[in-house]
């Protein structure tokens, strides 16, 4: 029951985090924007069992992909393929790490959030470079990738402990031992 509740809460949190990150002001000096969706995503795929985690990854890919969708002259710049493959791959990876560490920990969530953020923004940049041509890497571009990732690393523990407080995950007898390893 707790897992269903967690899945529902996290599924609602995805669009909420997207709306919230759009409202937050940019960080000077290069106007970087905070990314909350990867932090929620990393929490979800670490805390949920494999199958719900994959469904959650698909949902995250839909929200992220559709919000950033740009259609120019009837052509989609980055469709849903990249976000779907990206989030599903990260869901598998984080699940494997979670299994190897006998459950999720706040450090794992923090580093997972930062890695998902850095790979997501860098991946978008590389895709745009391939599609539009040119490779304009300068200091401001690097900061646009690094700062949100560092911010995700710092924000992740706050979400981790807030969600642990909101959804008291308890071990159950369904045979999946992941929630039992949910610890500090």
């Amino acid at each position, binding site marked *: 029951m707790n897992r269903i509740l967690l899945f529902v809460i996290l599924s609602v949190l995805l669009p909420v985090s997207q709306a919230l990150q759009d409202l937050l002001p940019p960080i000077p000096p290069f106007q970087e924007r905070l990314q909350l969706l990867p932090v929620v995503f990393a929490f979800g795929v670490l805390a949920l069992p494999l199958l719900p985690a994959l469904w959650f990854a698909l949902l995250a890919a839909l929200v992220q992909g559709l919000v950033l969708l740009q259609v120019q002259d009837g052509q989609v710049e980055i469709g849903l393929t990249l976000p779907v493959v990206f989030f599903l791959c990260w869901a598998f990876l984080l699940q494997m790490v979670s299994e190897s560490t006998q459950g999720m920990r706040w450090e794992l969530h923090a580093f997972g959030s930062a890695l998902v953020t850095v790979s997501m923004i860098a991946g*978008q940049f590389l895709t745009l470079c391939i599609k539009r041509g040119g490779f304009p890497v300068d200091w401001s571009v690097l900061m646009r990738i690094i700062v949100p990732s560092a911010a995700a690393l710092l924000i992740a523990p706050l979400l981790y402990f807030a969600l642990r407080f909101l959804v008291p995950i308890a071990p159950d007898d369904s045979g999946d031992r992941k929630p039992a390893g949910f610890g500090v």
Partner: protein
Amino acid sequence: MRKLQIAALVLLAVLAIVFCSMEAGPLRHLQTGLLGILSPLSRSGSAVKDSLGSLGKDLMTLDQLQAEYDRVLAENRRLRAENGGLRDLQQENAHLREVLGYRERSSFRLVPAAVVGHDSGAWWSTLRINRGTRDGIAPDMPVITDKGLIGKTAAVSDNLSEVLLVTDENCKVAAKVEGTKEQGICTGTRSPGGELQLTFLSKLADLQPGQKVYTAGVSGGIFPSGIALGTVKSFRARELDGMAVLEPSADSGGNEEVFVITGAK
């Protein structure tokens, strides 16, 4: 239980493949649906943000309030004086138009909108406004402020629209330079600096810093002629054309109120 899990996995794979193979049209519909879901969140979040902002403004000291009152009073007197002068000029202008037989200058039908959020994507410059199809907004309508053009509408839901800013690399605007015959294409840049670049100019174009750039209003285009775009910062001749760097007229980041041009009056 295992059968159910396999069925869920197969369904997931099928859905993933369906989403990956979607074309632009259905994706736009899905995006509009998502904007509809985000709309109440964005609107209420924006309202809370405004309330918190005004709370900070309300907590001014008496000295600050007095200073603010004095400033507003002085500005009111100045505006009254200016208004009187402008009324005379308006009458004179109307008289001259009548005498010379000028048609009344056509103006735009504007829909005011409030900015309810900026897109947090790192490489795209967009913002969201609290107007949609219910207010007569459609995709590809110009969005302006009193300072000039800031972009065009892209995805539009019932009461929320996404605006692609002129500072985005994907937003291309035909532009002309004040005082010259030079015309080019104005776009944003991927590097986040907020500057615009005007390309396809003549290599011999003698552009000077400070010259104004306006929309050219080409036939079949979506931007009407004469809307301020920016000011020339620098110009350089490239191998095949000339390129100018522009400072945008309207600061899209600092605007809370914008106008959508829905047509001519």
